């Protein structure tokens, strides 16, 4: 039965040009929620800093590094680790990923390598979630080519709105037919800041569809680093848990509407 549904496998990427915007916390929490609902989920920690791997207590190390992954499907399979949670696996980061761009540039179809690598995994998983490093690079273009949607965390500021517009323009220009859907959402929101409030109030009037479920900037999320697991896994009632749940619900809703 699963086989018959291969085409329903979804690939999501959490992506931002800027760093430190809450990408990884979002990726690990949404992955946890998806797996808890029954989806076989794989997170690929593409960021050489290895924050997602850290949250799952998995060593950020891949035998043979990014080079081996690109060359040999077996290396990729062998690198996947089960997390503490059922149905949730991780492809860890490796410090060598910082050279990934170079390696991708040397290959045949430099923008389609990720797509090639992920294809066999679609038999095993219902959801593939890519935690991307900041920046815009060949790796990013690989991510754009394979992802059904990009979750883009935005710290409410004029600059981040402008960057989002640039990203949108880039995707429209470079991949007019099969650009991933943009799912921007406000991240690290501080309600006490007037600027945050203003930006968020103005957002609906602009052309960009920003999701309605913001993630607040609060200590609880910061403390995830001490627990080394998704907050959705160990806390039940905290505000952050509600926010991630609401975001995940909205993402599913938007995607199923679009399908």
């Amino acid at each position, binding site marked *: *039965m*699963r086989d018959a*549904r291969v085409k*329903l*496998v*979804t690939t999501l990427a959490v992506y931002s040009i800027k760093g430190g915007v809450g990408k990884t916390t979002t990726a690990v929490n949404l992955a946890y929620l*998806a797996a*808890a*609902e*029954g*989806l076989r989920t794989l997170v690929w920690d593409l960021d050489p800093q290895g924050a997602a791997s850290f949250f*799952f*207590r*998995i*060593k950020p190390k891949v035998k043979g590094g990014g080079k081996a992954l690109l060359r*040999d*499907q*077996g290396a*990729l*399979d*062998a*690198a*996947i*680790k*089960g*997390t*503490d949670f059922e149905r949730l*696996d991780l492809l860890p980061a490796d410090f060598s990923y910082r050279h990934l761009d170079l390696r991708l540039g040397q290959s045949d179809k430099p923008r389609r390598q990720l797509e090639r690598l992920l294809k*066999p995994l679609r038999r*095993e998983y*219902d*959801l593939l979630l890519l935690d991307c490093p900041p920046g815009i690079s060949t790796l990013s273009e690989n991510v754009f080519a394979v992802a059904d949607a990009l979750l883009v965390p935005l710290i409410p500021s004029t600059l981040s709105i402008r960057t989002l517009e640039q990203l949108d323009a880039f995707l429209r220009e470079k991949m007019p037919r099969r650009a991933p859907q943009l799912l921007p959402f406000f991240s690290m929101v501080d309600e006490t800041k007037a600027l945050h409030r203003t930006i968020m109030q103005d957002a609906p009037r602009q052309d960009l569809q920003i999701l309605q479920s913001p993630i607040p900037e609060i200590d609880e999320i910061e403390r995830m680093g001490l627990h*080394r697991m998704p907050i959705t896994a160990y806390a039940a009632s905290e505000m952050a848990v509600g926010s991630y749940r609401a975001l995940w619900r909205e993402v*599913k809703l938007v*995607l*199923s509407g679009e*399908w």
Partner: protein
Amino acid sequence: MTDIASIEATVESFYKMRQTNSGTAELLVPSGLELHALIDAIDELIPAVREPDVTLSRRFFDSFDWRLFVAGVSLEWRFSESSASPYTAMSLFEDAQPARSTLCWRDLSESDAEPILQPLESEPGLLDEMPAGPVRERLAPLLEMRRLLPMVEVISQQTLVRLLNEDEKTVVRLVVEQNHFREPNAGRHGNLMCRLRLLSVRGYAEAFEQARLVLEKRLGLSVLDEPLAQEPLAQEALLAAGHRPGAYSTKLDQQLEPDQRADLATKQILRGLLETLEANLEGTRQNLDSEFLHDLRVATRRTRSALSQIKGVFPEALVVDFKQRFAWLQQITGPVRDLDVYLLDFPDMERRLPPALRSDLKPLHEQLVRLHAEAQRQLSQALGSAAFDSLLRDWHRFLDAEMPVSKAPTAEAVDLHPRARQAHPSHGPLPSDAELPGQALLPKQAAVPIKQVADQRIRKMLKRVRAEGRAITEDSPPEALHELRKSCKKLRYLMEFFQSLYPRDQIREQIKQTKLLLDNLGRFQDTAVQAQHLREHAESSVNASAGTSANAGANASAKPSVTSASTNASKNGLPPGTLLAMGALIGQLLNDQASARATFSDVFAAFDSAENAKRFKTLFATHDLCASAESARDKCGMPE
């Protein structure tokens, strides 16, 4: 990469993937070992975290005749009593509601195949009552008309323990399962073995091996040779509950000895049939599904056939009495079976009609369902009657009685009569006492070796089938084919009763040849019967409507019988559209019948071929001196 190279790479990686995933070991926990003590002992050697316990109830289902078990499938309906219910979402776009209860299909021939799940709120039963879904889809071709029955329930208390590495990361999972079984009908219950399953976490194969070694070498637990629990657990529970999975069969498989006394061998056959009959009684009474009654009727028909076809082995008066009483059983079970067949064929009948006419049949269906309910009520009553009770009691007594060794008067023949007479007053008078002394002597064939009787009877019936078949021409009336079918069935039953006396492959071949002929005759007959039923239905419906209009003007002092007739009329009246659709169906059925009739001569010619005759002859040839005696015996054989 070329295509072939990429395929190879995929296959290779798949293989590796399976290797990294394949870590599962199942261990037996010695009884009496305290769970806490075990977990503490493990924790001393490997850091471990115990999760809250989960209680899981699973009911294993199968049909009465073990269709799923035979097909290598296990079906469980599970419901979790804790909040940690299993989710069954399979894609982002499904609503991931936790299902409180789930139907779970496992293909036992592929031990590493994932189970197929379908949420199901209430216990499964008949296919028609089950919502569409992946499990129902797989069940349909196996189960057909049979009902799923709860065979055994297993209540498992699962304790999950996570084994950790130095980063306090889970690297191995350990599930301790304390199982308890409960048999839903008889209420039998008890404990099953305590099982411990060690599950690898992907990418931590070494930790898994270490944990396995610790449990085996340090804690002295033994690893089961064949891990993967479901099948052994289901089987363990079924056996503990007193089931014999796969044991039910309606096949005639009595093992007879060629030189066994004919009366004893015949009793053995009859006892097997009685066992089948009784096994299906409760299901028939409750109308669990239509197969119970069907199997009960087949056993009855075979019993009657054995009584009349295996001639001269029991006292005649007794045979006459039981034949009559089993005929009664066949008769009271007839109406429900007819309606069952009607209803089972209904979807097929609808398909025969052009789509535009199909909905016109609905009133007929409703009427059949009503009639079925009424007939079933009467049947359940008849099966609870004193007449039926005494039939079973007398039959048991007869089959279990010792057979006379010499030609002395048979005790039970004399013994039984008063009871039989009392129990079944509706019968005609039994043979007068004046006949008894002669009957009471050991019947002619009783002490003859069964093989000899079998050879004779089969040859005789074969001869009759041939004669009747050869006499049928293009112009023969339907009754001629009907008679041939009856003889043919007798031949088939005889061969089946006695099959253990002949080389297996050869007798099966002859049974198969006979079945081919029977299939043709059956198609001819069944379509005729269906058409006839439809016609009768239509006629009674029209008559009933006529009755209604006539009664409309009748005055209020009408007799009660008239009133009841008019209620019947409003029930039986079918709208004209339905009658027309039935007419179209009758046309279709008669076409079918005609095509069966057209192929008859070819089918019979194949049966009557020289080759087939030779095979029959080799199997049932006379090997002894009784050939001449045979004709004499046959003359005094009883009428059928």
